[in-house]
């Protein structure tokens, strides 16, 4: 039987761009170029490796996001995923983590799955909560923040380097996993992969397809609200000296003046 893998990928504003907020205090996605979140490339990579090890596997990449989010799907397809699902709806604008997890969970159920693979966190929101929320909503085990992952005989195993300990985890499929940037560099799409991706199917679903009411999502439906955003004042320019042999001593004098020594 085929192993059905769904990889959740997010389309995010480039972190090296000048990111800011739109008037409604949602992330401004117009002024900064978007891309497939680098941390989700690791998820695609691990899914590809798991699929390689399986007799028969199919990888669907899934994103919830605006029109341009298709770019993220294309990238994942050119890396080697088989098909893509894009959930797009005007009413999704401003959806928060709870809402996104609802939409993703419904889309994953509709796709059909044995294994869901997520990144460790999105590079814009950086909450790192979606995988846990998905596991909760889908009612399946969560095997998260893995630096190493493998699937064998219907069991997913992995290594998690936690705050105080390294743990070996194990769960029966179906399950939700998330992988860290320690799991192994993601491959670059090959020219062949890029060409092949153009012919791979990308389905588009809206809220109605997923039987979600528009008041459950979006800015109105959000479970949290941002009331204000202020740019952090630029740090006042510090003192910069060139080491002429006394740099360490000068630094020590500064630290002493600030009472650190």
């Amino acid at each position, binding site marked *: 039987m085929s192993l059905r893998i769904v990889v959740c990928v997010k389309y995010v504003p480039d972190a090296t761009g000048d990111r*800011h907020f739109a008037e409604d205090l949602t992330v401004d996605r117009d002024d900064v170029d978007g891309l497939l979140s680098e941390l989700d490339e690791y998820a695609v990579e691990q899914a590809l490796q798991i699929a390689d090890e399986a007799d028969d596997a199919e990888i669907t990449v899934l994103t919830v996001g605006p029109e341009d989010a298709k770019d993220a799907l294309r990238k994942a397809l050119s890396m080697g995923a088989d098909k893509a699902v894009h959930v797009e709806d005007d009413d999704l604008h401003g959806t928060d983590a709870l809402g996104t997890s609802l939409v993703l969970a419904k889309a994953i159920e509709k796709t059909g799955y044995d294994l869901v693979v997520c990144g460790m966190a999105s590079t814009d929101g950086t909450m790192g909560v979606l995988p846990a929320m998905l596991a909760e909503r889908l009612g399946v085990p*969560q095997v998260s923040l893995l630096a190493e992952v493998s699937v064998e005989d219907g069991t997913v*195993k992995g290594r998690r380097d936690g705050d*105080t*300990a390294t743990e070996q985890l194990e*769960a029966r499929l179906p399950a939700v996993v998330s992988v860290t940037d320690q799991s192994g560099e993601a491959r670059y799409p090959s020219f062949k992969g890029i060409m092949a991706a153009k012919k791979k199917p990308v389905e588009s679903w809206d809220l109605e397809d997923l039987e979600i009411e528009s008041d459950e999502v979006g800015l109105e439906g959000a479970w*949290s609200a941002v009331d204000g955003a202020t740019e952090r004042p630029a740090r006042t320019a*510090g003192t*910069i000296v060139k080491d002429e042999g006394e740099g*360490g001593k000068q630094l020590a004098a500064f630290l002493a003046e600030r009472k650190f020594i």
Partner: protein
Amino acid sequence: MAEVLVYVDHVDGAVRKPTLELLTLARRVGEPVAVALGSGAADTAAALAEHGAVKVLTHDASEYADYLVVPKVDALQAAYEAVSPAAVLFPSSTEGKEIAARLAVRIGSGIITDAVDLEAGVEGPVATQSVFAAAFTTKSRVSKGTPVITVKPNSAAVEAAPAAGAVEALSVSFSDKATGTKVVSRAARESTGRPELTEAAIVVSGGRGVGGAENFPVVEALADSLGAAVGASRAAVDAGWYPHTNQVGQTGKTVSPQLYIAAGISGAIQHRAGMQTSKTIVAVNKDSEAPIFDLVDYGVVGDLFEVVPQLTEEVKARKG
């Protein structure tokens, strides 16, 4: 005054510092009721009472250690139902965030993660967050359900505020999902004897400029002279020079110490995301154009192998 649930992060009964900081913030929005789970749970009570917990709900079962996250979510849900709190607060550890995320889904509440401050507001607690690699500060609140909020380490001072801290046994019945993810083995990390990275008042970090694992003792010697924790950039970690658990940045730890010293680190946006809120920032880098110098209070353009050892000697001399 309404009660506020506070999840206790502890190791065999020893309460970790971020939880004590959390109690300081919790007292601004209600009466803290602490929830301590697992081995040593009851031993946390004295420290929690000392810092303002009016009640300490405890429960121990082998499930907490043997299975990932869900048993703790079950316990938090039980505490939530028993107390009907005005908010539920967690330290922003990986575990704290995961429990919080699942609890929020279960009780149908909004969630705010990685708050760096918390105040009482007319419509419930208002959280301050630092976003886009700390380029912006936002104020948010939960608009549906009971606010579930995770708070970063070093967001508040630990304050003594003696309260009753009455220990009560929490009654928990585990859901059928509790045993879904087995912890097959657990190897505790060996302690280096240095302060915990996220809790340290001073952090000294090394980057690619350190040039190799064999040179990291230069960074460690400075850290030890200052009683500091040691951090590393991702470039240094990926090269295998220093453990991943010491990585500072977007995919490593966020630190917010009184003093951050960066040696041989260029200051990429992902690194800044993890240290930009440090109070005083110092850098040593041989490239005067390195972006890290945009952040510093004091910077030395020079070779770290000259500057850092000299600084270490000077610190030792001044400390006597």
